[in-house]
């Protein structure tokens, strides 16, 4: 393939996104996490021109809650063959950053896209990276890569100027060839300039980047660099890695989280031909040269378990979350939120609920581990190669530099592959057996061991006056955390409090008592719930005020960027102002996520008899600053909207205490082709702003836009996600029972 992703089996692999994982906050100082320092690194690199990217922590992670090492973040190498290799710790899981990062380098450097090779997520060859999540690759990493490429171009122009005897201003670069502008036949290639040299440059964040008007590769939509490999079956995922003598492992799992192993009989399994059994306390695995052979042996294990303690279920969880909550963290306070209740206008208090949601990538967590001469190599399906390396090192008692993690293509992550337990399991087994081991979770394991998007509760007391001005916003959120709990509407009396979430350190520790199983980052962690509640409540206030919901928003918005996005969505959708419910089934919702402004408008039909919601059309207007790859950005928008249908309409984990009742896609229902609305994505031009995040924003308003459209269609207000047919029917009955 053109991206030169190495497909030779089991040799190389590497190929971004999502938000924080709790475990990162517990790690030691960042200096210990580095894969190598600059000197070690430079010894490894052969000839050519090397440009190192280094950003200070505050530049790389503006949220201020995590730190980056001060040293290398990425680098690129221009070889004597003229090819440019980009080494980055980011990974490719479908979000398209292999392509967009290559576009950035190609443009700033002045080479063809096809001249770029991407090496991604290889901890021995790529500089340390925290992980691929939070829609950070383009907005935080992009400027650094671009700066490196821009710097490299200056180096090459200097070299070419000397060689050709012409000042830099008199030179032109195109497709990796520097020529004399006035005399184009006098030229030299980048490869020739790089030959026999070793030049190292270090780039800060201040390099001069190309202006949008100068873009030749960015701002366009070349075919995905990973496309050909993915349609031919050549693309390798962790489960496709084969090593000599490799065994497939199946691991004994408890029937419920919290159950303890009481007794185990392995004799029957051990009698099966070719089976090896590994037991380290409660970690029990059977291994065979075929995956189905290992599965048969697992079935032959006889385990008895002490039952897990009883716990909440999907109905009692909300009371549980509120009852065990810590003291709240106050995120915002304006005016007099306690006294404003008595003010003029209409006051409405609403409570919103959402269940646990699974990541459910189609590729379950998978890893292959091999221990050779004291060095552990792990091919892992992970969003966090460097943290994976450190987890493996600590689990098998090796120094971090004795562990190498390679990241082949990842078959979907959505935050769930920030957790990387399968890699640790594979490494432990490789160490215990002395042979390469593949651990590939089954679908049942993938669900059971998932780090779910947590169940959550939001309660909002709001009030609106006779002019459609919102006067009060008292907001309390349990368990979803703080992302998107903040408010961009201009409201005079505000109090926003968060009771236990996932993001802050103290809250993470408390989460152990909140949840009986793993929770973690799920595409725009927490924002889906916070935006569902906020944007539903805004519509509730619009209905109370007898105002068009778009009009109400505009009356309470001073943020011009948000006004522009709403107006763009309204134009594309053909929004016709009116009071709700109008019977048309039109809804809107908006949000800010990952630096990007987004507004969705949707049209739905509700079948009153069955309670089924069919989403007919979704229009998305998004201001994400400069757009590196417009089609790639639209793919992410479409993906967000389609995936968002799941948590909005059907996805809710069934569980009983620590027992996970969903085992496969027959009961845990993902969005299907028949659900597909017509999706129209509008990119609102904003070339004065650096590129912002694209992987998450469009998913955050999905719950509210559908709930608001359902209200407009039927007059029924849904306060809980997902909006299952049963809940829709119940809400419709409530409307029918309410006297007009």
């Amino acid at each position: 393939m053109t991206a030169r992703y190495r497909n030779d089996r089991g040799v190389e692999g590497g190929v971004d996104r999502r938000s924080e994982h709790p475990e990162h906050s517990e790690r030691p100082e960042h200096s210990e996490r580095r894969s190598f320092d600059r000197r070690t690194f430079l010894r490894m690199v052969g000839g050519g021109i090397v440009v190192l990217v280094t950003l200070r922590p505050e530049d790389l992670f503006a949220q201020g809650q995590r730190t980056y090492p001060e040293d290398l973040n990425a680098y690129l190498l221009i070889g004597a063959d003229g090819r440019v290799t980009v080494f980055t710790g980011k990974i490719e899981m479908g979000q398209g950053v292999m392509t967009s990062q290559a576009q950035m380098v190609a443009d700033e450097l002045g080479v063809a896209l096809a001249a770029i090779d991407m090496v991604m997520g290889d901890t021995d060859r790529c500089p340390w990276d925290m992980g691929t999540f939070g829609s950070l690759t383009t907005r935080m990493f992009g400027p650094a890569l671009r700066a490196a490429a821009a710097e490299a171009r200056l180096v090459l122009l200097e070299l070419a100027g000397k060689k050709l005897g012409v000042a830099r201003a008199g030179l032109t670069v195109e497709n990796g060839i520097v020529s004399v502008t006035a005399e184009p036949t006098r030229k030299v290639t980048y490869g020739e300039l790089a030959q026999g040299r070793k030049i190292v440059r270090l780039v800060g964040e201040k390099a001069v980047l190309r202006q949008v008007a100068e873009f030749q590769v960015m701002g366009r939509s070349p075919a995905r660099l990973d496309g050909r490999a993915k349609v031919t079956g050549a693309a390798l995922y962790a489960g496709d890695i084969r090593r000599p003598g490799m065994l497939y492992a199946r691991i004994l799992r408890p029937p419920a989280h919290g159950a303890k192993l009481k007794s185990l009989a392995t004799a029957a399994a051990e009698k099966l031909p070719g089976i090896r059994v590994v037991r380290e306390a409660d970690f029990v695995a059977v291994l065979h040269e075929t995956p189905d052979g290992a599965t048969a042996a697992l079935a032959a294990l006889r385990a008895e378990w002490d039952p897990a303690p009883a716990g909440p279920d999907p109905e009692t969880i909300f009371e549980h979350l509120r009852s065990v909550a810590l003291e709240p963290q106050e995120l915002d306070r304006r005016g007099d939120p306690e006294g404003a209740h008595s003010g003029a206008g209409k006051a409405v208090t609403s409570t919103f609920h959402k269940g646990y949601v699974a990541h459910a990538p189609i590729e379950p967590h998978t890893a292959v581990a091999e221990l050779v001469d004291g060095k552990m190599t792990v091919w892992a399906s992970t969003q966090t190669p460097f943290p994976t390396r450190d987890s493996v090192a600590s689990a098998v008692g090796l120094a971090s530099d004795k562990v190498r993690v390679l990241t082949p293509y990842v078959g979907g992550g959505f935050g769930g592959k920030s957790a990387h337990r399968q890699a640790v399991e594979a490494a432990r087994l490789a160490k215990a057996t002395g042979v390469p081991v593949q651990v590939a979770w089954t679908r049942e394991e993938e669900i059971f061991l998932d780090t779910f998007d947590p169940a959550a509760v939001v309660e909002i007391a709001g009030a609106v006056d006779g002019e459609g001005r919102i006067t009060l916003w008292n907001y309390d959120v349990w368990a979803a955390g703080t992302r998107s709990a903040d408010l961009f509407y201009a409201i005079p009396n505000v109090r926003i409090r968060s009771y236990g979430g996932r993001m802050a350190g103290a809250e993470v520790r408390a989460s152990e008592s909140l949840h009986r199983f793993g929770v973690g980052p799920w595409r725009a962690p927490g924002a889906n719930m916070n935006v569902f509640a906020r944007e539903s409540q805004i519509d509730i206030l619009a209905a109370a005020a007898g105002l068009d919901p778009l009009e109400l928003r505009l009356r309470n918005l001073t943020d011009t960027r948000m006004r522009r996005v709403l107006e763009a969505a309204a134009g594309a959708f053909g929004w016709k102002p009116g009071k709700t419910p109008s019977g048309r089934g039109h809804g809107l919702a908006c949000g800010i996520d990952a630096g990007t402004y987004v507004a969705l408008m949707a049209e739905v039909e509700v079948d009153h008899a069955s309670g089924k919601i069919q989403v007919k059309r979704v229009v998305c207007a998004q201001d994400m600053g400069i757009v590196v790859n417009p089609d790639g950005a639209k793919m992410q928008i479409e993906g967000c909207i389609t995936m968002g249908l799941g948590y909005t309409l059907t996805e809710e984990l069934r569980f009983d205490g620590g027992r996970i009742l969903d085992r496969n896609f027959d009961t845990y229902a993902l969005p299907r082709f028949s659900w597909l609305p017509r999706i129209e994505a509008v990119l609102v031009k904003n070339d004065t702003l650096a590129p912002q995040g694209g992987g998450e924003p469009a998913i955050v308003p999905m719950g509210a836009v559908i709930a608001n459209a359902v209200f407009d269609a039927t007059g029924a207000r849904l306060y809980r996600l997902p909006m299952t047919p049963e809940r829709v029917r119940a809400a419709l009955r409530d409307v029918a029972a309410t006297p007009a």
Partner: protein
Amino acid sequence: MKSVLQFHLNGKPTQLEVEGSRDLLWVLRGELGLTGAKYGCGEGLCGACTVLLDGAAVHACETPVAAIAGKRLVTIEGLAAGERLHPLQEAFVEHGALQCGYCTPGMILTVHALLEKNPHPTRQQIVDGLEDNLCRCGAHQRIVAAVERVAAGKGAAS
């Protein structure tokens, strides 16, 4: 019990000694070295393991390998003619009808079987034909567009 199976694999006559009751998926990905068919659910619920058996789409995770005896088995690796991509593969690349790519082989082969039976499907027929194939990234709209393009192309040629 092991037996010798004879079949055509991606156009080539092939012979394999194997336990006939094993799932085709593991034999494909193991003994036959073809990893394009993916494990997603193990119960025929996601379509990631779809292959073509005498032109029909089957779930390799639920097909005993003995069922391929005497048949033509086509996997994603056998669809392109050398370097030349099959029109469906080309259309998926052109339309950006994939993201993580893990479900892609199954999508393409499911559509291949659909078009074999019905070269000119309506949009609704395409949607119905893909209903049991899951994509978590949300490439659905582009997948339908890619298939419509190929179906329209075939229409023009005939």
